């Protein structure tokens, strides 16, 4: 096992165990999309576009009482260490599904019956935690598109490296570490909307990690809010660290 935490308790990239990577969110980065955002979270660089609500084609797929949410998480071929084929992989299809299910509880889809809302995520550069960064950015893009929401959705992963529970794994930590657990929450409604885990955690580590993730999400939520406020009300620089 590679040593990922040094004697001072610092990680390879200098972070403490409960520290997230640098985070930057921009709103309204695309002109055609109804809403859009850009996030840098560590080395993750992701653009999100929202189109909709709009008419469903073919029409028989429309739902009479609410809008349909469709997410597409896609990685640019140059986003990964070795080139990724442009065609969606099974991994991308699964992540698209869990992202969609993580965002849906926050949206008031009943307001737009018979329509569809498309959320397109393009990962320009992938680091550990791209699905979490993607969820965080998607909510911002949905807000930018004016979709009515019950709450925001914020996501952050927690994991285990060198035997310790740590926040927000980067790529190396994800590959060399013992566990990775992405979590998404609605911070005001105190609800979990995404939870995945692979690796090995004792039930105690699970509880500890889950709480760390929830706290980190609350912090990231402030960055989300600031990005939206700056876009709509102010001109202060968005970003952190």
């Amino acid at each position, binding site marked *: 096992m590679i040593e990922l935490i040094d004697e001072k308790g610092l990680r390879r990239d200098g972070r403490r165990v409960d520290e997230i990577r640098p985070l930057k969110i921009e709103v309204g980065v695309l002109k055609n999309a109804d809403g859009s955002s850009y996030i840098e979270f560590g080395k993750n660089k992701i653009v999100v576009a929202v189109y909709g609500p709009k008419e469903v084609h073919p029409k028989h797929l429309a739902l009479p009482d609410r809008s349909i949410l469709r997410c597409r998480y896609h990685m640019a071929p140059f986003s990964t260490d070795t080139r990724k084929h442009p065609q969606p992989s*099974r991994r991308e*299809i*699964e992540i698209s*599904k*869990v992202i969609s299910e993580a965002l849906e509880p926050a949206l008031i889809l009943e307001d737009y019956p018979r329509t569809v809302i498309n959320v397109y995520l393009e990962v320009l550069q992938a680091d550990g935690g791209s699905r979490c960064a993607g969820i965080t950015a998607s909510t911002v893009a949905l807000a930018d598109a004016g979709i009515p929401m019950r709450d925001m959705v914020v996501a952050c992963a927690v994991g285990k490296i060198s035997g310790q529970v740590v926040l927000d794994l980067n790529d190396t930590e994800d590959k060399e570490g013992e566990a990775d657990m992405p979590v998404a929450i609605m911070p005001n409604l105190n609800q979990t909307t995404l939870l995945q885990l692979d690796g*090995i955690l*004792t039930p105690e580590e699970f509880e500890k990690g889950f709480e760390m993730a*929830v706290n980190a999400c609350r912090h990231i939520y402030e960055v989300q809010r600031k990005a939206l406020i700056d876009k709509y009300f102010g001109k202060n620089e968005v970003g952190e660290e």
Partner: protein
Amino acid sequence: MSAVKKSVVVERLRKAQIVEFLSKEKRLDGRGLLDFRPIKIETGIIEKANGSARVRIGNTQVIAGVKIEIGEPFPDTPEMGLLVVNVEVLPLSSAYAEPGPPDEEAIELARVVDRGIRESKMVDLSKLVLIPGKKVHAIFVDVDILDTDGNLFDAASYATVASIATSTMPKFSVGQNGQIKQEDEAVPLQINCIPVSITLAKIDGEFIVDPTSEEEGVMDARITLTFDDDGNIRAGQKGQPGTLDFNQVKLAVNIAKDRAKEIREIIKESIKDAKG
């Protein structure tokens, strides 16, 4: 469309009924909230496979078959064998399953089952290397969903585990010229643990285990957790667009951990004879 509209009405009535029962800590089929339906596991049913198992949970019926072949390792793990779990939701299995490539639900199912096995390190992939970087054992587990009545995640997982646990491994020898020959001999495939997947459905705020199709039709959220022999969590996946509050997440782990212990005994029993 009319079929859809009708099903919406039926679904609502059915949900009301299911919820009413749940409020009395009961289920439509008489089970308690945390009871499984009868589980029946048969192994060694496909002679041509290296291992196989049929699992029935209530009316849900799945078959897993293992094929062990020679493959090439992934470039980034040259000293690891391959383990691939694939699940096919066959059109036989319900009136709603269609022939064709797997949809996103089938892909999620396959990947969650695969992760549970992979992350538990049930099979030590580093022992499956023939020529490092070039030739390794490739273990393919294919799960056929034959009849669907809910809880496919657990059924597919148990079939996968039981088929792997009862597999024999063909012996291959590497000749001086690097050519690989299969020998007549075969040995049992070594396994390190029995990972157990437990899926909880949340309906109207209550958790139940082993949901039927009907219960799944009205559930708000689903959470699948896989445990190893020592009670560690090896994989987890929340599904469906419902949510879990923070306490429910912890509660789910506790419920699932207990159930996993019991199910592990059932799986162990089913593979005992084969391993003998």
